[in-house]
Structures are given as C-alpha cells and as structure tokens.
C-alpha cells in the first residue's frame, strides 16, 4: 500500500500497478478492466465525444479530485440505530469489530467476481473491477427467510474505494437488504453489486445514500432474476456532491418482477443521476419504476430509463414514471426514457412530469391557517410520501423517514 496522492485516470491506473500483485480475484479480468478503463477514461473528464449513457453527467470533478490512502477511522457516530444484523465497511474494508453478522445468511468477504458486471461497457465498473479490494458476499440458502440485514459503508476524507458485493438468493429465499452509505469529507465510493435472484426468491434492496456533502457516490448494480423471482429495489439519494446510481436488471425466466423505485432530494449544487436498464429476456415479466425528484437550489436531477424487450418476451409489462418537483428556478431535471421493443404482445408505458408546487394547493393550505413555509413542506412531503410508500418493509421505511426528516432539518438550518 502506498500513501501517494493520486489524481485522475492516470492516478487510478498507477494505483492499480502498485496493487496488482496483491489484489484478490482473477488477474486477467483485472488487466482487461484496466485496459478498458485506460481506453474509456472517466466520462466527461476529457474533451470530445459524449457517450449517450453519460449524456447528462460528467465525472470531471472526480478526475480533478485527489485521493490518497487514509487511515480507516470509524467512530460509529453516524450509524442510525436499526434492530438488525449489520455488516460494516469503512473506506471499503470490512470491519469485523463493529459488525454484527447475521445468523441466517452466509457471509464471506469478496474473493472472486460474480460475472454479471460489464467492465467492457461501463468505465466505472471497469474502475471497480480493476481496484476492488473487498466487499460483502451474501448467500441466502434456498427456502430461507433471512429477515433484514444492514450493509453499511462509511467513507473518510480523501479515501477512494471500490467495494465489490455479491448477493446470491437461493431458490425461494427471502431477504431485505438495507444499505446505508455515509461518511465525512471528500471521498469516492464506487461500489459494484452483483445480485442473483433464483426461482421464486425475493430480494428487497433498499438503499439510503446519505454520503457527506463533498462525496462522490457512483454505484452500479447488476441483477439477474430467474423465473417468478422478485428484485424489489428502492434508492433514496440525499447526500453526495456528484451521484450516479445505475441499475441493470435482466429477467432470465418467466413471471419475474422488478421494482426500480427511488427518490432524490437535492439542494445546493448537488447532481444525482438515476439510470436504469431493464432487459426483458423472458416472457410475462413485469418491471415497475417510479422515481421522484425534489430539486432545490441549483441542483440537477437526471433520470435515464431504458427498457429492452426481446422477441421472446411476450406479455411483458413495463412501466416507468419519472416526476420532478422544482423548488427553485435554477434547479434542473433531465429525463430520458428509452423503450426498445421487439415483441408484439407487450404493455409498456412511460411518463414524466415536471412542475413547481401547485399554487392552488398552496393557497388551500394557507387559507386554512397553515403558514406558507409549513404548507410548502407539507406538499413536498406529500409528493415524496407517494414514492416512499413503495417501501413496505417497516424497518427500512422508518430509516428512510428519519433520513428525510434530517434532510428537512438541514434545509431549515
């Protein structure tokens, strides 16, 4: 390990050269990823052609930031109290001393790549594949209901970490995985999570991204859902300076279900990009996406949603809704739905709404004696509540509600 400061694409490649001999996993995959990362660079960092997948998000600020090896400090003060087993990573490294491992789930640390991720297509995944040192490997055996498990990531100033998580749900298995991301200072959290949902299994994956205000959070999930399996995902983006949560879900058997819901509450100059790709490669599967943005200050929200329906995927039911509430004239929302349909008997719909708070609703509340600021906050909460209602797990919902309250308190301060 070196303490050298590294910056930009060259910095990450130099770090790889230094660590190459000690990193776990298949070295040929690492080398191929490094080569892909060398060719692609960080999207938007260099002048020139803009890739379609990165139309609205530039990683220039990541390229310009400097990172170094840091001491992995953890004092636990940020951790919300959740009554469930927890697995804690600090600056990307597993910390047994502050974790309470679940009894119902087989937990090991990252050793080998899962095989779903595509470093050849996504530069951030290439960066992760090149530099991943650690990660959680969770296996819920067939037929087991593992209850709730919390996966925590804490980042420290100047750290850059690329955890690689793998989640395997055996046939008929169930689990609610609550992921919390937080930290202090300027750091890069670039996780890749590979999810395998076997027949009749169900994973509820709720993520609270509440990183430090200066942090970069660039998370990519790949999920494969077998027949009658369910991948039920919700992301709440509150923190971070530059954020992208990208999810790729592929149905491999009939009657699978995927929910890729989320909400983003942004202020100041925050940028958060919610990108999804759903591949319907099997018949009679349904995918649902409802994403809501509340945008204050000069913040920018992005939604890119792509649904691909293969010729075999008859009776596909795809739904996509993106709604943005702009609380300031300087806030921006960019939305790009893409439907690519090769089957003829499908139901696919998408919609987008962008607006300010409704003047009639605001007047109605005020005419009943509710002061302007309180009336505005009631309407924003109501807008958000409709998104958060997608989270039916009570523990997870409670954590999200408290995080939203915290966001309001910070806005009011």
């Amino acid at each position, binding site marked *: 390990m070196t303490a050298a400061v590294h910056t930009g694409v060259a910095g990450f490649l130099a770090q790889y050269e230094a660590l190459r001999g000690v990193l776990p996993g298949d070295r040929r995959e690492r080398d191929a990823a490094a080569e892909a990362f060398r060719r692609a660079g960080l999207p938007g960092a260099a002048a020139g052609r803009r890739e379609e997948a990165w139309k609205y998000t530039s990683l220039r600020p990541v390229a310009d930031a400097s990172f170094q090896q840091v001491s992995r400090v953890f004092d636990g003060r940020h951790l919300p109290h959740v009554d469930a087993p927890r697995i804690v990573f600090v600056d990307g490294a597993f910390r047994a001393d502050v974790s309470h491992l679940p009894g119902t789930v087989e937990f090991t640390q990252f050793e080998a790549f899962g095989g779903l991720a595509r470093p050849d297509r996504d530069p951030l995944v290439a960066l992760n594949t090149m530099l991943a040192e650690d990660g959680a490997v969770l296996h819920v055996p067939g037929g087991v209901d593992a209850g709730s498990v919390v996966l925590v990531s804490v980042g420290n100033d100047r750290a850059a970490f690329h955890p690689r998580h793998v989640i395997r749900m055996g046939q008929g298995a169930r689990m609610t995985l609550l992921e919390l991301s937080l930290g202090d200072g300027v750091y890069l959290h670039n996780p890749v999570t590979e999810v395998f949902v076997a027949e009749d299994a169900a994973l509820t994956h709720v993520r609270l991204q509440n990183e430090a205000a200066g942090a970069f959070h660039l998370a990519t999930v790949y999920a494969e859902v077998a027949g009658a399996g369910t991948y039920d995902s919700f992301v709440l983006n509150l923190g971070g300076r530059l954020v992208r949560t990208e999810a790729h879900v592929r149905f491999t058997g009939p009657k699978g279900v995927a929910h890729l819901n989320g909400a983003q509450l942004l202020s100041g100059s925050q940028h958060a990009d919610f990108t999804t790709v759903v591949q319907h490669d099997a018949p009679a599967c349904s995918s649902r996406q409802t994403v809501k943005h509340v945008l204050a200050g000069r913040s920018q929200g992005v939604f890119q949603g792509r649904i691909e329906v293969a010729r075999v995927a008859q009776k596909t039911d795809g739904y996509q809704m993106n709604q943005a509430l702009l609380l300031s004239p300087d806030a921006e929302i960019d939305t790009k739905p893409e439907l690519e349909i090769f089957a003829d008997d499908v139901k696919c719909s998408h919609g987008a709404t962008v607006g300010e708070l409704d003047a009639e609703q605001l007047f109605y509340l005020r005419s009943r004696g*509710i002061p302007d600021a309180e009336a505005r906050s009631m309407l924003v909460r109501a807008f958000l509540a409709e998104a958060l209602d997608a989270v039916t797990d009570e523990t997870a919902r409670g954590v999200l509600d408290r995080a939203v309250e915290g966001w309001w308190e910070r806005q009011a301060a």
Partner: protein
Amino acid sequence: MLEIRGLSAAIEDKPILKGIDLVVPQGEVHAIMGPNGSGKSTLAYVLSGREDYSVSGGSATFDGRDLLEMAPEERAAAGVFLAFQYPVELPGVGNANFLRTALNAQRRGRGESELDAVQFLKLARAETKRLAMPEDMLRRNVNVGFSGGEKKRNEVLQMAILRPRLAILDETDSGLDIDALKIVADGVNALRRPEFSALVITHYQRLLDYIVPDRVHVLAGGRIVRSGGPELAHELEAKGYAGMVAEPA
C-alpha cells in the same frame, strides 16, 4: 364585522370587481346572489387572500383589521374561512393530519395551546358524526377520490372544526342533492351564534331556504346592484336576474 368599501380588483389587468360596498355586522348572515361572471367568486378569493388577484382600490376590514394587508394564513387565524367552490385535492396529505395542522396553526397564531392527537381526534370524530360523514373520511387523503358532495361536506367539516368568525361559502350548494344540501345547511346553522357571521354566495335561492339570510345582495357586473331582505331571493327566483340587472356601461 366585515366592512368592504369601494373594493375594486382585477385578474391579469381585467377588472372584475368595480367598487363593492358591503357591511356584514357581527352575528348576521348575508347572501350574495348574481349571475355567472358577476364577480362572486372573485370577491370570495380577494377576501381570503388569493394572490392572483390584484386589488386596485378600496378597502376590506374585519373587526377593524385591514384584511388586504394580511397573508391568507393570518386572515384564517383572525377567523376568516372560505368554503371553496371547488375544494382542492391534496394527494399524500391525510385529512386528519391536514385538519389538525390547520387547527393548531390557527391556535398558535392566536396564542392558544395546541391540541394533541387524542384531543383532536375526539373533536374530529364528533364533528364527522354530526355531519353524517363516514369516519374513514378522516383517514383518506384530502378530497382525493371524494364525490362532489363529499368534498363540499369536507369543507363544512373543516369549518365546524376551525370555528371561524366569518365564513364565506362560495357556491357550497352547487352539485349537492337535496339531502346533502340539508346536511351542509345544518352544519352552517349549527355555527350560528352572536359572534359568527357568514357571507353565503350562491347562484340559486334553494340554499337560502335552509340557511335563512338576514340580508340579500345582488352582485352584477362587479357591483352590488340591489340589497334587501330574504324576500329578495324569492323575487330573483321568480323574475330571474335579467329584470334586475340593468348593466351600466
């Protein structure tokens, strides 16, 4: 007492109210009748503080306080209540939470103590029952999925809980069948007491059979063109507005 003197108002530079003079003494119920487009709803909105109307002249005071200088929420705390002609739907806002927030905001505004959830629910359930409303109306989102009649009854429920000193009812009778109309009228009549006054805006005389006004005013072309006792409503019903409204140029 509500005192309106020479009140003129416009929306997007289009004059609608052209000098209204109207006094509603404490304890009285006055009706405002008039054809469509005469400015009835505009008067209701201007008195309750809707921002898209600009007041171009005149004054409106309530118990000596200048209403036009006050924010909508301040007018509400002072005791002014508008029952909307078209109650607004609030998806994601529970009716009970809405009502309690409003009541407590007004109580705070008047320096009174707030009601806790238990005290509030007791009050809200009693009023809901009195207005023959299903109790689940408190649990539902404000006006979402309500029928036209339920929305109007929900306005009266809010009024019953907020206990205003001046209620402005903007065509609260429109879209109601006779049973719902009686319930709404009973709700208003239950509030009648010496310190309560009301301005009942209606297109038809029907409502005034149940809420009997002390005075009736006819609004046409942005002005009050006639005032009289309750019998004026019957005269209007018989003759129509056409005979009464000689629109001045």
